């Protein structure tokens, strides 16, 4: 940690401290398993970004609801078609785009809340901290899916941005507790006292001195958080209260085929495989980053 540099000023000058992010990247690239994960995830992200160029058909087009409906995989439709005659491969490709975007954006929302709430609680201390933590405990004790069910059932056919906000709002409790612990631990570190003595404001201390020390838990939480949101979004869409039609998300596609699982097996198998692959790579990366930081 940056605070503990007593006694080794000379070595410090020779070896400038590597930034936490640089450290994470180097650590990831050292392990073969995480190199594979980076590659696979990169491909999936690329597929999502370039969806309009790659997808062979329009994901929402229903070209022939009679002749082209529910076709098993073939050369023309490698992943088959759904009961509305839409091409499942194209929907899976666009689904990558939407599911990843929802995962990332919702995680941004929860990181913001988690860091701000945790930092305030940790920095304020005392009664404010105690009260904020009790509220957090209560939220933490409700399973996230149940919380989302209770919320989403009240709003039928929610738009995607609203869904992102709700997914984000239910995902920051754990991180906020970690952040609060770190801030509490570092609040009285010498470098903070020094900054205070130099006349730094509270805001400056939080943003310039404490936040940089929180990068590692935040990066880990973000990586694992995206994985979690992707699974949650798929689950909600599967229950019919997630991404609205005709948009395609991985969970949505599986939901379209869920009435006839046996006859439309391609509709659950392929999007699910993509989803598992994405979530696996994110989990591998998240753990690799955590290992790097813990070994330090």
């Amino acid at each position, binding site marked *: 940690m940056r605070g503990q540099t007593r006694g080794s000023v000379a070595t410090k000058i020779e070896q400038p401290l590597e930034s936490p992010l640089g450290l994470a990247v180097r650590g990831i690239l050292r392990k073969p398993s995480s190199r594979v994960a980076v590659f696979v995830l990169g491909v999936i992200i690329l597929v999502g970004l370039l969806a309009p160029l790659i997808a062979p058909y329009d994901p929402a087009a229903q070209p022939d609801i009679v002749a082209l409906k529910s076709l098993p995989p073939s050369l023309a439709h490698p992943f088959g078609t759904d009961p509305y005659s839409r091409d499942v491969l194209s929907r899976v490709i666009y689904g990558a785009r939407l599911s990843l975007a929802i995962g990332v954006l919702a995680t941004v929302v929860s990181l913001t809340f988690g860091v701000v709430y945790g930092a305030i609680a940790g920095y304020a201390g005392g009664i404010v901290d105690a009260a904020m933590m*009790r509220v957090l405990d*209560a*939220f933490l*004790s*409700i*399973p*996230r*899916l*149940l*919380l989302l*069910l*209770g*919320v989403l*059932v*009240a*709003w*039928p056919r929610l738009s995607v941005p609203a869904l992102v906000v709700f997914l984000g709002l239910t995902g920051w409790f754990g991180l906020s507790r970690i952040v609060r612990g770190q801030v509490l631990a570092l609040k009285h570190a010498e470098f903070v006292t020094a900054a205070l003595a130099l006349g730094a404001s509270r805001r400056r201390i939080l943003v310039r001195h404490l936040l940089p020390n929180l990068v590692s838990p935040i990066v880990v939480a973000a990586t694992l958080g995206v*994985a979690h949101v992707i*699974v949650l979004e*798929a*689950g909600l869409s*599967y*229950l*019919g*209260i997630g991404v609205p039609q005709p948009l395609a998300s991985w*969970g949505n596609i*599986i939901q379209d085929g*869920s009435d006839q*699982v*046996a006859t439309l*097996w391609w509709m*659950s*198998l392929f999007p*699910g495989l993509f*989803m*598992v692959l994405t*979530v*696996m790579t994110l*989990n*591998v990366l998240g753990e690799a980053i955590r290992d790097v930081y813990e070994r330090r």
Partner: protein
Amino acid sequence: MIVAIVAVITFVLIHLAPGDPFSAVTDNPNVSETVRATLRAQYGLDRPLPEQFLRYAGALARGELGWSFSYERPVNEVLATALPNTLLLMGVALVGSFALGILIALIQVARRDSFTDHALSGISLFFFSMPDFWLAILTLLAFTYWLPIFPVGGAVDPVIHEYLSWGGRVLDRLQHLALPALTLTLLASATVARFQRAALLDVLPSDYIRTARLKGLTERQILRRHALRNALLPIISLIGLSFPALLTGAFFIEKVFAWPGMGFAVVSAIGTRDYPLVVGGVIIGSIMVALGSLLADLLYAWADPRLRGH
């Protein structure tokens, strides 16, 4: 506290939301204005919000969760009939997943860094990363359609169950339980295996393990008698932590296999916009999870000799 928070959140959100709790009835153009007004009055929806909230909170405090529109029965009754099935599913999966998970972790640690270890790590990561409902769909596909050895869904055979002998009924139930329980067990054991492998590797560098090794014990004896025993405490806390995942897993799995538990009732209620039932399920589910972790805490205090007597 939890109940209070869930109640407040859901109440506020439901009343912020467009329409009212049974807009499906009231939006129907064939329903006349008088009928609508009567319905609203009947369910107390015509009163001011604070009064509605107090009535709702009062009912909750008496343990009443409201009236289920779709089942036309009190929510309490609906959930009470469904709860045993969910508990059965979760209980079987809890026992099964800890047995399987610990076994896998032991095999991995006994051959650490071998091919077996890495392969098992990969497999448990695969199951760990899987959405519950997807694995449920795959098992359903595999064992009821492609290889039809299990019944498709439900808790008992709807036609012949009543005519079976006592033993036949038990067998029928077990056959229906097998796939949902297997799915939930597989999902949960991935977490247990990953956690337990790390816990075992954590205690291996300890002094008492080195002593045991110096005494000439075999690696197997060390693992079973010394390492596992000390890595069991974290397992108890893991039991507490695994309740949310078990419960949410059960919700999805019940839907896929039409297993008539709480999750199935709640998830079906989403489709019919039966708010009281959904909210009731959410409240009961949260209480179950809280009780589960409380139980694990008590168990932990009892099992740890360092905490006993305090």
